[in-house]
């Protein structure tokens, strides 16, 4: 009853996934790439005319958008679900390129409509969300803030403040030594008239039915900034759920890979952010290595090793430079909701000794997002290990789990992505 067989299945159509697919398909393998979004490109390139997307289109790979992997019913088989579609895929090799999600920080008012992820607002705007003339405060940690702010401005937003929790000295020394120097200077140049605050972070969002203002703190100074959107991002969290489901080992919250980008599960490769947050350049190199490896071209893979080593160094510097400060642990007050799905406040979670206990007693992490938002938060707040993954990886309707489609429906999926 297997609907579809492939040499290489790639999960995730961002830089790492596209690079892997190109390498494997160009080596003559039958390749399919799955993505939750209707379009390829990942969060970073979606909707752009990027040369990697063009190369992917010409590579002979098949793209299936608007679908998600919910389970591995047996080794070598994935259960894929889309809107009105549900089928099994059998693979010889699997490349996991599931990217990352934003890390959020709970503070009073962070659940109000209008408080969004910085990358999240970018994704929304790319899909048509209106931003022209809106007042936007960007806050959090990491180089994504700068890039998001420049993007919001290009779409007509009025940037009223950019709050980076990192101290100026650390941020500057990273930017100047990183090989991304010119990019950083260009971005800063475009934002030179925006108040750019270092060692600064949001302590409260206020409003009735939506955010109306944000209170920021910089040293001993606190002030309130009126805004239509507060775009927050406190770094990124690797999406390791699929890797964990198929049995891959993690190390420090990221998927463990060897020189060939192979995980601890034979025939399963991983590239990009799930192996540790390192940015697009590392993702592309790792994706190419994974694609070559999955196609059996080990020689071609080794040509990228030197470049990879350089970007892994960059990754270490990036993570050290934008490490989160301890003061952020004090942001939520006892009534602040930590688990947004189940509305569990901090005061109910704090008495527990571990994630499992908090889940069982408070329903924290038991809602539709399955702890993807609050899991990284409690890891940061309490140091808990959050590693429970079980199928289905994402909530699906019961009939989609039970009624697997036929080969015909899988083919229909190819011709009508989305």
């Amino acid at each position, binding site marked *: 009853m297997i609907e579809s067989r492939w040499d290489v299945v790639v999960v995730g159509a961002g830089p790492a996934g596209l690079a892997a697919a190109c390498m494997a398909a160009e080596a003559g393998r039958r390749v399919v790439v799955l993505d939750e979004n209707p379009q390829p490109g990942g969060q970073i390139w979606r909707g752009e005319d990027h040369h990697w997307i063009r190369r992917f289109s010409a590579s002979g790979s098949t793209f299936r958008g608007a679908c998600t992997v919910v389970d591995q019913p047996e080794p070598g088989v994935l259960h894929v679900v889309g809107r009105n579609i549900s089928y099994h895929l059998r693979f010889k090799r699997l490349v996991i390129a599931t990217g990352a999600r934003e890390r959020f920080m709970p503070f009073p008012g962070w659940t109000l409509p209008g408080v969004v992820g910085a990358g999240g607002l970018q*994704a929304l705007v790319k*899909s*048509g969300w209106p931003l022209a003339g809106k007042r936007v405060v960007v806050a959090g940690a990491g180089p994504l803030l700068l890039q998001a702010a420049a993007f919001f401005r290009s779409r007509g937003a009025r940037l009223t403040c950019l709050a980076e929790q990192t101290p100026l000295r650390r941020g500057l020394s990273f930017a100047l030594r990183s090989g991304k120097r010119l990019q950083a200077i260009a971005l800063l140049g475009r934002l030179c008239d925006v108040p750019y605050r270092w060692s600064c972070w949001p302590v409260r969002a206020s409003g009735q039915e939506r955010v109306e203002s944000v209170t920021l703190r910089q040293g001993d100074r606190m002030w309130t900034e009126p805004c239509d959107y507060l775009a927050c991002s406190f770094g990124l969290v690797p999406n390791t759920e699929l890797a964990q489901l198929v049995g891959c080992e993690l190390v420090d919250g990221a998927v463990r890979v060897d020189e060939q980008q192979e995980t601890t599960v034979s025939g399963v490769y991983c590239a990009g952010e799930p192996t540790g947050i390192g940015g697009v350049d590392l993702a592309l190199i790792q994706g190419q290595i994974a694609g070559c490896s999955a196609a059996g071209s080990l020689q071609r893979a080794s040509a990228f090793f030197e470049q990879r080593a350089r970007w892994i160094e960059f990754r270490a510097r990036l993570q050290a430079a934008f490490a989160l400060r301890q003061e952020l642990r004090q942001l939520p007050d006892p009534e602040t909701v930590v688990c947004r799905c189940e509305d569990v406040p901090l005061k109910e979670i704090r008495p527990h000794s571990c994630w499992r206990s908090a889940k069982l007693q408070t329903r924290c992490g038991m809602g539709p997002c399955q702890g993807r*938002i609050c899991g990284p938060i409690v890891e940061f707040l309490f140091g808990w290990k959050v590693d429970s993954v079980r199928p289905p990886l994402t909530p699906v309707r019961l009939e989609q789990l039970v009624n697997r489609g036929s080969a015909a429906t899988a083919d229909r999926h190819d011709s009508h992505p989305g």
Partner: protein
Amino acid sequence: MIEIRVNGKTLKVPEGVSVAAAIALSGHDRFRRSVAGQPRGPLCGIGVCFECRVTVDGEPHVRSCQLLCWPGMEVCTDD
């Protein structure tokens, strides 16, 4: 342009616009109420957080940020 309905009101949106964006274009900030009744809107924008879920053509709990509008679509917030 395609025509959809958001909470009973007709709205014209360009092709390729997500349901989440269409809801914002129609002037709604609140997409749903949480289990405790708090107002909520999109957070992650990439299909992870489920805060943007709405009812589409009678089907509840659809992530509006991951779905593109189609002609005649009927969208209801506050599911």
